[in-house]
């Protein structure tokens, strides 16, 4: 057990200070434990959003020593015992107070995505029938806890502030989960190129690197979507094939 120094951001979008706190770190503590201890003992008005403390609600996203992380899943023994720990809010979103940011922009992006449209003929007496091999890709994307660490680290939103041009990795994953759904018949490819901004992503894998659910956002979600855009708009062979034979009707799993 030792006293450790923490620098925690206090302020809002306009002004802010990294305030020093010294507190005792006990074995097994995570960064969120430390923040809550400081809140209880030294700064009662310190704002932090948290809920489950189990890495499943996605509320406690912050930047620890500059890296976007869930504070409840970041153990203190990951850091050297003499290292000062700096805790700041998510940089890509406006700060409401201290470590709490306004992530409502993300909800607006979600509304842009065309919802699921199940093929009417896919409903049998047994209900909707799907097979494991058809849904396992989509299951990976369903693990998303909407912590917005990927949205925060994406340099298109974070550094270049192109929030009007790109919906961000989290919503590319949502589009993937709908586009790859075996029963969905909606076409989102034109929107994917034009409105969702698939071409803005330069696949630097940072979203994958920070995902606490280890979803392979870039390799399994964004790149397959980019390839579907290539099929539709860039590959002359698939374009000519579609012109001659028409749009391929989606095949549904056998009942």
């Amino acid at each position, binding site marked *: 057990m030792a006293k450790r*120094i923490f*620098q925690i*951001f206090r302020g809002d*979008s306009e*002004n*802010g*200070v*990294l*305030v*020093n706190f010294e507190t005792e770190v006990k074995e097994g503590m995570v960064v969120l434990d430390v923040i809550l201890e400081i809140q209880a003992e030294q700064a009662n008005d310190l704002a932090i959003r948290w809920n489950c403390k189990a890495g499943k609600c996605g509320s406690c996203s912050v*930047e620890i*020593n*500059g*890296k*976007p992380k869930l504070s409840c899943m970041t153990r203190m023994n990951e850091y050297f015992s003499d*290292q*000062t720990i*700096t805790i*700041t*809010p998510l*940089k890509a979103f406006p*700060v409401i107070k201290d470590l709490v940011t306004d992530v409502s922009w993300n909800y607006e992006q979600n509304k842009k995505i065309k919802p699921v449209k199940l093929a009417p003929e896919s409903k049998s007496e047994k209900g909707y029938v799907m*097979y494991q*091999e*058809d849904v396992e890709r989509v299951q990976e994307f369903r693990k998303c806890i909407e912590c917005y660490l990927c949205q925060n*680290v994406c*340099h*298109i939103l*974070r*550094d*270049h502030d*192109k929030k009007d041009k*790109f919906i961000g990795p989290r919503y590319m994953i949502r589009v993937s989960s709908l*586009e790859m*759904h*075996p029963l*969905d018949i909606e076409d989102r490819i034109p929107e994917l190129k034009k409105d969702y*901004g698939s*071409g*803005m*992503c*330069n*696949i*630097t894998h*940072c979203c994958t690197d*920070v995902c606490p659910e280890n979803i*392979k956002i870039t*390799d399994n979600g964004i*790149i*397959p979507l980019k*390839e*579907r855009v*290539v*099929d539709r708009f*860039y*590959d002359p062979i698939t374009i000519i094939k579609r012109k001659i034979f028409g749009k391929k009707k*989606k*095949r*549904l*799993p056998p009942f």
Partner: protein
Amino acid sequence: MHTNVSISLNVKGFAKTLRKDRWWLYPGLVVFGLTGFLVYGFWSAWQADFYWYSAGQEGFGGYLAPFYSPLVFIKEGVVGAAPMSHSILGAWPSWWPSWIPPSPSLLILAIPGIFRFTCYYYRKSYYRAFTGTPPACAVGSIPRKGKSGYKGETGLMQVQNLHRYAMYFAMLFIIIFFYDAYLSFFRSGEFGIGVGSILLLGNPILLGCYVFGCHSLRHLLGGSRDCYSCSMGGQIAHKNGKVITWLNERHELFAWLSLIWIMFADFYVRMISMGYLTDLNTWGI
């Protein structure tokens, strides 16, 4: 005693970050690795000589430097050049500008070059290392000024969508390199094994692992489907997809291994062709 520090979270600029780890290591290694490869590759291609070694034997077999394969044309009378029978289209064309060396490598270098340039893995590495968009995760990108600032892969960089076609050509290179490997196990028609044979066999194996893990191939062979249970083809695609996905998860590893290996194999053939190294082999020549 520590003092509180005023901070603005809106500070933007190249390499601005609160990260305290060695984030610069990855882009630094990529700059070193890719620059080294490009410098060696262009130097080797520009030489136009010493790309073949068969210990002076005329018959079937010999080592061909991978940067020079396939031999579309061959210039006669060049030291360390392959026999004319290895040329696909015959003697070196007379229209070739005199200021460019008559190097078979210069004729084919663009194809693997485009494949690697447009590869989804290399895009990550050079966007981070060379264009700084971003240099590392949560590290400030190089600010983009101009009309609309950062455009990603929408403007000129739509050229990246050529990757699928470059991949088809890269497949041909695997077959060609396997033939070169086969050739390297013979000297004057006699079977044997040399260090060069092993290097030239490792080249298409590693290149194959890299190409078969390609994201575009993964899409074409199964990823574009939404239903695998619908048909026999879908079930085959699902099974194949597992192999391709295994390779795809190691795409970075094989991208680098195949890059380093081909460079080393090329260098080795050049060195033994120039007589600076002696090839250890079972032929005893």
